[in-house]
């Protein structure tokens, strides 16, 4: 049986689980994921059912060099999060800067306070 290969998943076995900060801000929820050296064309943010997945491949910095010592992880970045229904998944904003992927997930309309007008006679 042939399994469907996801396009965002690169041909490597190892995955790096990037560290993340999650904070509530005025606009909703903000996630900042550390993915230094990610190839910008490969950065992907997907929402499937209730799962938000971020992934990226890493840039290769060595050209004709021989590696002497390595502390950085090998493989591609990948991490998934469970999304609350109170967040507007169609309005997610993403920005990649200085090796940090920042996602802003606004609150869904149904969570915003509604003002109900009182009619007086």
């Amino acid at each position, binding site marked *: 049986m042939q399994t469907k290969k996801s396009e965002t998943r690169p041909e490597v076995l190892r995955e790096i689980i990037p*560290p*993340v*900060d*999650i*904070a*509530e*801000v*005025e*606009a909703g*929820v*903000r996630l*900042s994921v*550390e*993915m*230094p*050296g*990610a190839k*910008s064309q490969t950065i992907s943010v997907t929402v499937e059912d209730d799962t938000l997945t971020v992934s990226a491949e890493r*840039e290769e*910095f*060595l050209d*004709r*060099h*021989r*590696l*002497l*010592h*390595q*502390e*950085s*992880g*090998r493989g591609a970045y990948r991490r998934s999060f469970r999304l609350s229904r109170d967040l507007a998944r169609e309005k997610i904003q993403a920005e*990649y800067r*200085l*090796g*940090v992927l*920042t996602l802003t997930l606004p609150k869904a309309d149904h969570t915003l306070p509604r003002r109900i007008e009182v009619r007086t006679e």
Partner: protein
Amino acid sequence: MDLIPMRGFELGRFPLQRQINRLFEEFFGESGWPTLYESGRGSFPIDLAESDEEYLLTAEIPGIDPKAVEISVTGNTLTLKAEKRPEGEKQVKNVHRTERIYGAFQRMVSLPGDVDPAAVQASSKDGVLSIRLGKREEAKPRTIEVKVQS
């Protein structure tokens, strides 16, 4: 591609854990490239590579303005100093999770050979700092011709 042994010892998240890991690693001779000194709450992973002409050191510093990183070279010792601060802290109303490590940190590493301080170049891209350190003449590999007398 070369096979690179995975050294799980390096992956310590906390300074004490890392120091102990490093102690083990140096004892077992796995490191081969000791860090002379390290301070601060956080650390950043470093890779070191070499060509005939230079050493290439890459450090992962996500979220740090590369212009604020202090790099100094003396002999074969390279010192990196940086500080990582949380972004957009003022807007935060409630913190749910903090896995990223912030604070000032410093790292001093010894290179396998002497470098020419005049031939050090640093550049940065997407949170990765690349430092190219030109080798001194003495440190470059030389080909010695063998004269064969017949």
